[in-house]
């Protein structure tokens, strides 16, 4: 069995308004940082998982993302897998 580290990024879909991102963008501007065109807030979930193969990990993470980590009505997800 190998161990894998998975980083899952969950983002609100572009069509969904992100008021928390807008508020943070406004605060960033008050800090004097110029040029920010867009700021959106998402989530990152780190999973350490034991499995035979990377493909097997991929299957499990896909299921987790689709059924639990993200609500695909409002969110998109992507992830990276690293063997440790």
């Amino acid at each position: 069995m190998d161990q894998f580290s998975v980083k899952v990024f969950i983002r609100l879909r572009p069509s969904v308004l992100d008021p928390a991102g807008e508020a943070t963008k406004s605060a960033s501007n008050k800090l004097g940082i110029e040029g920010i065109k867009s700021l959106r807030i998402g989530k990152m979930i780190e999973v350490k998982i034991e499995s035979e193969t990377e493909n097997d990990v991929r299957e499990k993470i896909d299921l987790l993302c689709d059924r639990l980590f993200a609500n695909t009505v409002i969110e998109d997800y992507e992830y990276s897998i690293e063997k440790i």
Partner: protein
Amino acid sequence: MESFTVGIVVFPGSNCDRDVSWALEASLDIKTKYLWHEASDLGDVDAIVLPGGFSYGDYLRCGAIARFSPLINALHDFVKSGRRVLGICNGFQILTESGFLPGALVANKNLNFICDDVELDVISTKGGWLNTEHQEKGIKLPIAHGEGRYHCDQDTLKKLIDNELIAIRYRNNPNGSTFDIAGITNKQGNVFGLMPHPERACDETIGGTDGLYTLKALIIN
């Protein structure tokens, strides 16, 4: 015959379960029974209310963890059998997360937790949760939520409109909901989810009785 019994689901973090029980028992003389979220036998209740609150601390997303409770699992057959389910506030969020109702509920546009009375237009009486008199006059119910902005894509919105599934709309949209939506039903009409709290509008002494009818509608067979 056993008297009609409404099951009120209690999740860790539910906080409107007792209000619903009080409203049903004291205001309407309807028998209630609390159902712990780990229960999977729903055989002795005739209708179910998913009350407001913060099930499982609203971790991950509102209603996301509740979806995996044994009770929600059993709710699929309950709904298929035609029995009635009312999801209020967090209960509505659970119904969307679990796929009983389309769309999702996200953070209010102004990021505030809004606690207020709202005027609502009654659009559809599907399922008998509301009536034609409500359609003519509208109703007033309290809201109390931070994540009540109903969101759905345009295709879903069209289906909601075409199938008359939008039960209530805000007159002055407080949270940025798509199409001012405050509550919807499923196609069969036996599942109704709404952000406003009918159980908090069941007695004149606490500001109104516009919620009584919807709670009473739980016992329509």
